[in-house]
């Protein structure tokens, strides 16, 4: 099996040459070979370190700026939604006959930090939508969707659609008047598509009208179906970003003396 070439180590981590007169360490205990640390033990069994080095320490082009961090920012917004959502699910009850509204009221009024975690999830949703559009705008205006990164763009667009679907399904869950009527209107907009629209709306509602299973359907889609798909697609997205590298800003012209132009950074963009 061919071995991956090891990426260059940052200067600080490169082993220093021996100074003259220092005793040679030949014959001394070599911790890497002996495998006496926990990290060595893990690495010997998983061989993860080349992969981690491949992921974390990679060349990024000259001239990158803060706009390149929007993707990471969106990722962290997603993680925020995932973590707060999992814990909200411990208190939430998808019961259309009144339990859902009551459980949200309980989270906001009685649970320790409940209003805060609920607020993080609610406002984090808007933040994520804003960030994902800014990220998309950065990629578009920098021309970063061009060859060979088309597939990264396509996966990103699917992630955008899934994020909007998350917003739509999550909006119903508090089950107050605004949630209910916004969902009624949203499903009816859906039904306006010719031929397939009515069936799609039937599928969303689980019947011809808003009924007992609609709320749990939305809840299941919101917390199981879409997040699973998004996690998998984010993995693919990040793999492609790492594999293909990131683009230089479009105003940067390539020129002859490239020596020393490529800074090695630990930036995760």
């Amino acid at each position, binding site marked *: 099996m061919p071995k991956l070439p090891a990426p260059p180590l940052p200067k600080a981590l490169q082993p220093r040459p021996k100074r003259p007169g220092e005793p040679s360490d030949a014959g001394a205990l070599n911790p890497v070979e002996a495998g006496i640390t926990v990290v060595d033990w893990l690495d010997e069994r998983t061989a993860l370190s080349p992969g981690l080095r491949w992921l974390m320490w990679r060349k990024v082009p000259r001239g990158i700026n803060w706009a390149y961090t929007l993707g990471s920012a969106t990722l962290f917004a997603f993680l925020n939604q995932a973590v707060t959502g999992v814990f909200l699910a411990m208190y939430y009850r998808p019961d*259309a*006959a*009144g339990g859902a509204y009551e459980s949200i009221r309980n989270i906001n009024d009685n649970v320790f930090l409940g209003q805060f975690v609920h607020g993080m999830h609610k406002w984090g949703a808007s933040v994520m939508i804003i960030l994902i559009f800014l990220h998309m705008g950065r990629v578009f205006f920098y021309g970063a969707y061009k060859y060979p990164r088309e597939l990264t763009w396509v996966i990103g667009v699917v992630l955008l659609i899934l994020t909007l679907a998350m917003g739509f399904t999550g909006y119903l869950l508090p*089950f107050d008047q605004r949630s*209910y*009527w916004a969902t*009624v*209107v949203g*499903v*009816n*907009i859906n*039904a*306006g598509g*010719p*031929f397939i*629209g*009515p*069936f799609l*709306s*039937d*599928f969303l*509602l*689980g*019947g*011809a*009208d*808003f*009924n*007992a*299973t609609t709320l749990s359907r939305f809840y299941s889609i919101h917390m199981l179906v879409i997040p699973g798909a998004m996690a998998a697609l984010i993995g693919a997205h990040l793999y492609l970003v790492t594999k293909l590298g990131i683009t230089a800003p479009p105003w940067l012209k390539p020129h002859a003396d490239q020596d020393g132009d490529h800074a090695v950074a630990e930036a995760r963009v």
Partner: protein
Amino acid sequence: MPDRHKPPKSKYTLDRNIPGAFEGETVTRRTFMNIGANGVGAVAAAAFTLPALGFAIAPIFKRQTWTWQAIGKPSDFPKNSYETKVINITPGVGEAGNSIAYVRARDPKIDTEPEDQYNQFVALSSRCMHLGCPVRYVPAAERFICPCHGGVYDFRGMVAGGPPVRPLDRFYTRVNNGLVEIGPRYSVNNELHRFAPRFPGEPLDGIGQFLYPAQFDTAGKP
């Protein structure tokens, strides 16, 4: 395109250097194993995917049964104004399953659609035919007005202004044992022809009735 320069592949596995193959074997055991293992995997995956998918989309194909709810005596309903009646259209979800019907007695002077046993009382659904918000009857104006996007309907529920694409949906009504009863909902086009219920926002005039097929989850005529 067949390669003319290559000799044709022997059908005998011995000539193809596949160890352990029987003379004259056309499907080798390796191919058989490949197809078999992948096939079994596909069957196993289908065994849980297909029932789960059917489970998720089954409500599309469910058909409702006809139910009738008594809403009052015939004398309760005047010809020139609407009575507001709360009816239940979806059981099991508490208030979210309730809806409002605006009911009046049929007035032959203004109700020009053909008369039968199901429209002796005109029962309009409060669901706006733009995007499904609840309309409100304003007696002074004799209009139905939608709070969301400004849809307006006249006294018969026909579109008088705003974005709605068809008149207000109606309910079948009948008189049974001296009580007015309200039945399933149906949709109408601008000539008040009856159609199986459609979602709001779907016009039923001209090509619209073909662009938006009726939902499976609807009862036929009684």
